[in-house]
């Protein structure tokens, strides 16, 4: 066995996961309300995000979709003047009450794909390895395997295998977004949040990323905010319709899109407002 294995020669072998994921945890909220500087943004949200499904959150712009996603991984902490009441659970862990120590682990278990791809200021390899390194995976061999595995997972391996050490900002926007996806997959989250993850991409890259999400739901539970209803109709298993910070209707895609119960949902779907 050669002492030094060239990275681009590595195969996508299976290997023992460095994380102790004990089965699937449910992500759900109980009477979640949230206000920013006294303005109520989310009102009494009680909802469950099903495992191994794609759940699409839809609703007019400004209704609180992004805010709800940010509450799941507590990125909402970066906003000032936020008051939260109610609970968000991931398994037995109450996300709303989590201290700083637990938060890093919760954020590992709930990945995020941002609206606009945002590579970290390091190489392609460094971007994928970053999450593992900060959670204490140090062995070069293990990091190599993780990088190869997840670049393969998002179909980026063949495109970048010869320039793993070059800066990630050199990739096209579509490639960057797949890199961001691979980066959050690399720490093996249970849930993946995506906030309009294809809105900044050209139609072709958008399609690639969309197909990736559909494929990934076998292993991950996916919560997407979609900017177009068409996308939601194409890929959603479950749909949550939010209006002015309140959940108006939830259900399977078929129920919500084809047999909506609520008047607001019908109006929204028929394009009366958007």
């Amino acid at each position, binding site marked *: 066995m050669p002492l030094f294995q060239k990275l681009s020669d590595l195969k996508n072998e299976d290997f023992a996961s460095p994380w102790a994921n004990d089965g699937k945890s449910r992500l759900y909220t109980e009477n979640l309300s949230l206000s920013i500087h006294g303005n109520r943004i989310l009102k009494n949200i009680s909802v469950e995000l099903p495992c191994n499904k794609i759940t699409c959150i839809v609703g007019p712009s400004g209704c609180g979709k992004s805010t709800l996603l940010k509450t799941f*991984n507590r*990125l909402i902490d*970066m906003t*000032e003047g936020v008051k939260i009441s109610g609970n968000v659970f991931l398994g037995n862990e109450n996300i709303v009450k989590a201290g*700083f120590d637990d*938060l*890093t*682990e*919760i*954020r*590992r278990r709930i*990945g*995020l794909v*941002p609206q*606009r791809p*945002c590579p*970290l*200021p*390091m190489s392609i390899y460094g971007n994928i390895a*970053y*999450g593992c*390194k*900060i*959670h204490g995976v140090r062995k070069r061999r293990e990091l190599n395997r993780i990088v190869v595995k997840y670049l393969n997972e998002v179909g980026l391996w063949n495109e970048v295998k010869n320039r793993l050490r070059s800066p990630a900002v050199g990739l096209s926007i579509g490639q960057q977004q797949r890199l*961001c996806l691979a*980066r*959050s997959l690399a*720490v093996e989250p249970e849930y993946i949040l995506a906030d309009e993850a294809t809105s900044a991409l050209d139609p072709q890259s958008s399609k690639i990323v969309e197909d990736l999400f559909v494929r990934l739901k076998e292993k991950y539970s996916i919560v997407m905010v979609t900017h177009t209803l068409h996308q939601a109709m194409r890929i959603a298993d479950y749909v949550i319709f939010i209006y002015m910070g309140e959940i108006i209707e939830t259900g399977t895609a078929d129920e919500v899109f084809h047999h909506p119960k609520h008047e607001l949902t019908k109006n929204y779907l028929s394009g009366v407002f958007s």
Partner: protein
Amino acid sequence: MLSWRLAKEKVMSGVMFFITCASLLLVVAMGIGLCLRSSPILSEISLWDILSANEWKPAKNQFGFFPFIMGTVCVTGISIVLALPVSLFTALFLTEYSHSQVRKFVYPVLDILAALPSVIYGVWGTLIVVPWISGWLAPRFVSEYTSGYTVLAAGTVLAIMILPLLVSMFVEIFSTVPGEMREAAYALGSTRWQLSRRVVMKKSLPGIFATVVLAVSRALGETIAVLMVCGNLPQVPRSLFDACYPLPALIANNYGEMMSMPLYEAALMLAAAILFIVVLLFNLLSRIILKRVED
């Protein structure tokens, strides 16, 4: 009516252009003036001999700059070594850790500190730093008595002087790291320190470098505060507890005294010219890097 308005516009734009050019020319004129006035000594002794010679005996026509250059380098070096980590951590604390309330209070304080006249830092150094070095610090490290007027005192005072500049420039640079990048790193489970070290500082590396270069150029030229605590002995400092004599102090202490000796005056002019050119170069370098970073 209209033409009068246009005429005024023309005149004013001409005047402003002229004034702007004049202030630029002033810098050039100062440089040329310094070089011309220092030419007498350069025609007697070669530049290299002046820069490398150890002896400073104006009465015997010995003008060795080496001790002064080493004094400047040591004081500046110590100040950067002391101020850099402190300012980095302060700026990181302000941008990544602290509440916005804290920032609102600290930023104006930094501006005030940066605007304090340097003689105040000098007085403070004489009253606090010098006795502390001679009475407390030096006896713990060296056996013979030190007055406290040392390279270390000058470096410490200088470090404190450039601290506000460094902190506010670092804060500005760290603030240009996009919020989305912070979100991306936090969303993966970074602690604030991991974010600071691996993302914020990494992204800001060229800016940090440019800031340090700018701070060096500021430290090189600082005169009064350093002169008050450095001891003013023309010798190459061998330890932190030796006195030293940086170039700006040499000029400020002696200019105007022995104008009867033409070579002496030319020597001081040469010191000023060297300082001028070095500071100009460092400033330019820093600005070029910062410009690159912005693009």
